[in-house]
């Protein structure tokens, strides 16, 4: 579907019809000091050959380190066919298809994506994706507060064990709407959320409890118990889940007696390369009762005038172009291209393939943890079961250890010190299905050497004469 920009003649003709001389006159209302003006710092255009040289040099600077960092973005195998298909002309647009008559393929892919996400989460409805996992959580929180019409509570309980960036993004998005995110501490021994820790925060009404599964430390939460507890207080439950983990763990729709009300998360593990942090895609699913609170695009299956099945955007009255300022959200698009990749990726893997990926990640991370903890002073911080990440305590400053490992071409983990100073020298490690046994052995050997140089006493310096 070509998107052809207007020619200067067409622009002039349109301006003449409305009696305006210059396009800029249409933006008069915006004060001059709020306009971006000319963009500074953009260098002169380069010829293709020069761009090729520059990009090759930058790629070399990145190197090809062995990656043991997860912390929200994961290095999974992506079958070559995924992006081969995504790059086909019929699919290669990130944009939402308004014209159902010209976009059946794209709409069907969105519909299939939604079907897959509802199957993974065991919930009733999914949207066609959001920007990323963190903004999906913010939208889930806004949904929960809107749905809490009777109680009118504007507090949401958010565990400290939830991804620090998710907490920061959610806070930035919801704070202008007068919603309070209350941080609940994690259990120092287990790294998980307990009812005892929650109880003091439940003396005032709250609209929802956020439950990450697994949490940022890779630790599995007691989702059934927490879900029942929150719902007994009249609050909704928002699950923040890893889609790969859902192949093994119980889905949010089956948590506790009644199931979580909303589930969201990051779709990056489903066929999206790390790509320096994005673009990724967020997913958001909910129970049918909350369907009209769900923001974003929803593709639906319907029948055309001849009774043949077809696909179209549906429930659009929730959205900005219909409901204006009272829309459920200002989210007016979806990550179409990345969702296409996720849908193809999931279709290739199937339920069994996804389960095998999840099991391999879990097994590799256990192997990694055991190998690394053979070094004296390196030990798991928490005693609860993990999915595919684990927090480890180090006997030396984490930043120094990670810097030394990077010099050996190993990205040894995520330094937990900035976000969780209370943990002391600590890193978060991850081994997906991509890390072979010899990769793990290499890391363990290098770590032992790096730790030894930083902890063992140097050779006696006093010479004996």
């Amino acid at each position, binding site marked *: 579907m070509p998107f052809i920009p207007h020619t200067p003649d067409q622009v002039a003709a349109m301006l003449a019809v409305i009696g305006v001389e210059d396009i800029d006159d249409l933006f008069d209302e915006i004060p001059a000091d709020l306009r971006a003006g000319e963009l500074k710092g953009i260098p002169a255009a380069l010829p293709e050959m020069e761009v090729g040289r520059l990009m090759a040099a930058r790629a070399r600077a990145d190197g090809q380190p062995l990656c043991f960092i997860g912390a929200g973005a994961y290095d999974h195998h992506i079958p070559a066919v995924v992006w081969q298909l995504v790059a086909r002309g019929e699919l290669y647009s990130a944009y939402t298809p308004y014209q159902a008559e010209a976009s059946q393929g794209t709409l069907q892919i969105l519909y299939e994506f939604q079907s897959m996400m509802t199957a993974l989460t065991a919930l009733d409805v999914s949207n066609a994706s959001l920007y990323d996992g963190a903004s999906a959580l913010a939208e889930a929180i806004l949904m929960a507060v809107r749905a809490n*019409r*009777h109680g009118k509570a504007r507090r949401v309980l958010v565990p400290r064990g939830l991804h620090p960036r998710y907490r920061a993004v959610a806070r930035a998005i919801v704070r202008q709407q007068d919603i309070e995110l209350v941080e609940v501490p994690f259990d120092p021994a287990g790294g998980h959320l307990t009812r005892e820790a929650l109880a003091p925060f439940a003396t005032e009404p709250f609209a929802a409890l956020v439950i990450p599964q697994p949490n940022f430390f890779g630790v599995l939460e007691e989702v059934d118990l927490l879900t029942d507890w929150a719902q007994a207080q009249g609050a909704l439950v928002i699950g923040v889940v890893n889609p790969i983990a859902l192949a093994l763990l119980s889905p949010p729709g089956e948590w506790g007696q009644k199931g979580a009300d909303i589930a969201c998360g990051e779709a990056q593990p489903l066929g999206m390369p790390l790509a320096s942090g994005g673009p990724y895609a967020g997913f958001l699913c909910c129970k049918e009762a909350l369907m*009209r609170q769900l923001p974003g695009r929803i593709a639906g299956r319907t029948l055309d005038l001849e009774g043949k099945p077809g696909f179209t955007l549906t429930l659009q*009255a*929730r959205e900005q172009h*219909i*409901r204006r300022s*009272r829309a459920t959200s200002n989210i007016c698009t979806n990550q179409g291209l990345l969702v296409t990749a996720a849908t193809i990726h999931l279709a290739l893997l199937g339920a069994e393939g996804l389960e095998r990926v999840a099991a391999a990640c879990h097994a590799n991370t256990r192997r990694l943890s055991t190998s690394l903890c053979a070094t004296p002073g390196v030990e798991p911080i928490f005693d609860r079961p993990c999915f595919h990440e684990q927090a480890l305590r180090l006997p030396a400053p984490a930043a120094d250890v990670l810097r030394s490992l990077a010099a050996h071409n190993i990205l040894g983990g995520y330094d937990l010190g900035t976000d969780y100073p209370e943990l002391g020298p600590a890193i978060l490690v991850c081994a997906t299905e991509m890390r072979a046994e010899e990769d793990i052995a290499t890391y363990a050997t290098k770590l032992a050497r790096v730790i030894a140089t930083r902890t063992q006493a140097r050779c006696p310096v006093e010479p004996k004469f």
Partner: protein
Amino acid sequence: MSQVPSELRYTKDHEWTRDNGDGTLTIGITDHAQEALGDLVFVEVPEQGREVAAGEACAVVESVKAASDIFSPLAGTVAEVNGALADAPERINEDPYGEGWIFKLSPSEGSAFARLMDADAYARCLDDE
């Protein structure tokens, strides 16, 4: 020409109000409003027991082409809601002044009803549109 029953009171936003004589008022949207919206596909009724201010948005009607807020004509407490609309929003199209009622209100001020627009005034409003 749409129907404007003479025993009802109206608002500029096309809500009608009926005095039930038992201290409650019934509220819905007018024949003109339902016709302008087209086929309704969803109605979100207010929570029973909710306190609403005059002019506060407290319900939503959604048609295939638009969604509109319903404003409470008067201040009061929501006494009853028409739960049947959840499964049959088309009742508003079919019978806007009867089966298509949206909610009942216990007004906080008994005399406020009399200050709402009467049928003649509302009919003139429609003529102006």
